[in-house]
């Protein structure tokens, strides 16, 4: 007998199957494979798009490696996604699905996973992606929220902060399908995008005050945890090392060019400032559902988040992009440089008179006669 209950159950099940396909095969969406690019650069992508949702395929390979983090040659046992600190920026659109293959090669020493702040459920995906050395896993999550979001390794307990401050973090940008807009809905377009991942590090020192070097992450853990617990970093760097985005590796732009600077800090607050410039449009919290603030001097990136700032350069020259705790910027390494070419705008700023000696005060005739230059 076909009961009313069975019919209703059948309808419910059918409705569920239509609404939430559980297997990738059932999504019937086009697929696009993305080749990720090392920061500060970002893989090519559309901003506003006329295309429909896709399954965007990414691969991240975890690499534990010893790196040099400052000019004294201090070495550091880093844990990385794709070999860089931070890991690469992944760009998709609202409604896309991100299908990530996470590989933990047998050459690594520890289990790792990934937590996407942009994803929903399972600790951001952490519960579904724990892989031992020699294993890989595939996770798919739906990009339902627009904005810039941190991703990071989160194996659990005290391992989580340690992996994060060892370099295992990066960011995702989920763009609205119509691209970025200001509060009136006017379209905002960037000519260039840079991804700056800020990393706080906690490197132990020996009795003489020199930074210690270790042969493996495991060897470094106990003493590093002691430094971490004091909450004072020994290094705060952009792109993995002091000076990594300066000199020959300075970021470049031109007068009239609009640049989007995505800034992530997976663990600790930061206050970015472009010395000589501004944030024309800043999504300080990084979420494009909120209208950007305009004309900012310095903005705030909450630890555990990524933000985005849009700026059109108006003057040529050398700019420093820093966290405006200037001690961290100059002593701990949190500074990048922009080299911007183009024509100087005398109206915006001009040196009316070059520095010169302070002229003597007007005096009586006798006094000025005895005074000489």
């Amino acid at each position, binding site marked *: 007998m076909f009961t009313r209950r069975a019919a209703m159950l059948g309808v419910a099940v059918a409705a569920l199957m239509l609404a939430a396909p559980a297997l990738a095969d059932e999504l019937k969406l086009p697929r696009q494979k993305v080749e990720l690019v090392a920061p500060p650069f970002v893989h090519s992508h559309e901003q506003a798009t006329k295309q429909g949702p896709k399954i965007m395929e990414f691969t991240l390979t975890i690499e534990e490696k010893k790196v*040099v983090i400052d000019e*004294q040659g201090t070495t550091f046992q880093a844990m990385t996604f794709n070999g860089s600190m931070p890991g690469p920026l992944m760009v998709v659109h609202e409604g896309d699905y991100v299908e990530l293959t996470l590989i933990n090669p047998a050459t690594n020493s520890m289990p790792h996973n990934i937590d996407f702040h942009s994803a929903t459920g399972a600790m951001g995906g952490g519960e579904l992606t724990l892989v031992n050395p020699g294993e890989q896993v595939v996770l798919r999550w739906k990009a339902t929220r627009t904005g810039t979001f941190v991703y990071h390794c989160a194996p659990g307990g005290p391992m989580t902060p340690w992996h994060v401050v060892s370099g295992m973090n990066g960011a995702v940008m989920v763009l609205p399908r119509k691209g970025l807009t200001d509060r009136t809905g006017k379209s905002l377009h960037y000519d260039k995008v840079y991804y700056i991942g800020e990393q706080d590090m906690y490197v132990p020192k020996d009795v003489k005050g020199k930074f210690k070097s270790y042969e493996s992450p495991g060897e470094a853990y106990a003493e590093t945890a002691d430094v971490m617990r004091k909450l004072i970093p020994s290094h705060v760097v952009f792109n993995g090392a002091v000076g990594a985005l300066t*000199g020959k590796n300075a970021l470049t732009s031109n007068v009239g060019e609009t640049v989007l600077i995505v800034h992530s800090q997976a663990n600790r607050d930061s206050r970015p400032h472009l010395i000589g410039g501004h944030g024309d449009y800043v999504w300080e919290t990084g979420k494009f559902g909120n209208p950007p603030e305009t004309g900012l001097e310095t903005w705030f990136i909450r630890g555990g988040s990524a933000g985005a700032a849009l700026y059109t350069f108006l003057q*040529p020259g050398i700019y420093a992009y820093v966290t405006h705790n200037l001690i961290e910027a100059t002593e701990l390494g949190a500074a990048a440089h922009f080299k911007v070419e183009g024509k*100087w705008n005398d109206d915006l700023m001009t040196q009316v008179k070059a520095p*010169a000696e302070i002229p003597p005060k007007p005096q009586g005739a006798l006094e000025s006669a005895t005074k000489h230059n």
Partner: protein
Amino acid sequence: MLLALKIKLALAVAAGFASPLAVMPWLTNSTPTEISGAQQPFVEMQPGTLSYRAAGDFTHAGRQAAAPLLSVRFAKPFAIMQNQVSSADYQSCVDDVGCRPLNGGATVDADRPVVQVSWHDAEAYANWLSRKTGEHYRLPTDEEWAFAAGTRFKDDGVPVDDRDPSKRWIARYERESNRETPATDSKPRPFGGFGQNEHGLLDVAGNVWEWTSTCFVRTVLDDAGQALSRSPNCGVRVAEGQHRSYVTDFIRDARAGGCVAGVPPSNLGFRLVRESKPWRLRLALQAVIDGVFSIPAWKP
């Protein structure tokens, strides 16, 4: 011996060349051979001419101007250390309470340069070494350093567009970014690790920037390009290396940079010039000394 001492002093004063430095060695017991700093080899720079980009800032008619390229003539030879002052030598000065101790963690080596020393530290060492040896040691001037550096001295001139300051900033930044030794290679090497220049000096423009005695000077030029006035800031001195640097005199570690956005020196160290006494005076004084000592000791 009191008479001999009085005669020595009287002669020194009478000769008119008396200075505490000239008199002192006859009163102390130490000889030059005990101070290794004075034992290190010196290069005798012969007279010559140097094409030299002037240091400091230049203005003309109230606007930024380019630094002039000067022709500097060295009429007399001068002696300059073949290698930078070693950390062991500097430590001797520290042990003798003539110099400020090095920062904790510094290694002491007889064959590596002392680094993380300020201009004041370099001056203190030069004065101490002079006192100990009776010679006159001092920091080189920027011109002397450039002359001794030879082909390793880099012209830091940039075209100055007084309507567009960004051009000189970018030109300087690009030039300083083209370092032969990357910033991460900052560990001091044993002497000779950066090779020898054509004058025989070791490690010029390696990863150690060397203090000079030259102050930061802002010069006002007239229409003909001649100096109208100079305002020096001797709290800032020229440090020379892969590029010219202006560093505040009490700074020991310039790695954090002095400017808002530039390429800072990896290490601060120094080498010294030895002033020679005029040779005729040397002979005259030597003859007098010989004469004095040939008089038998006289007891009052």
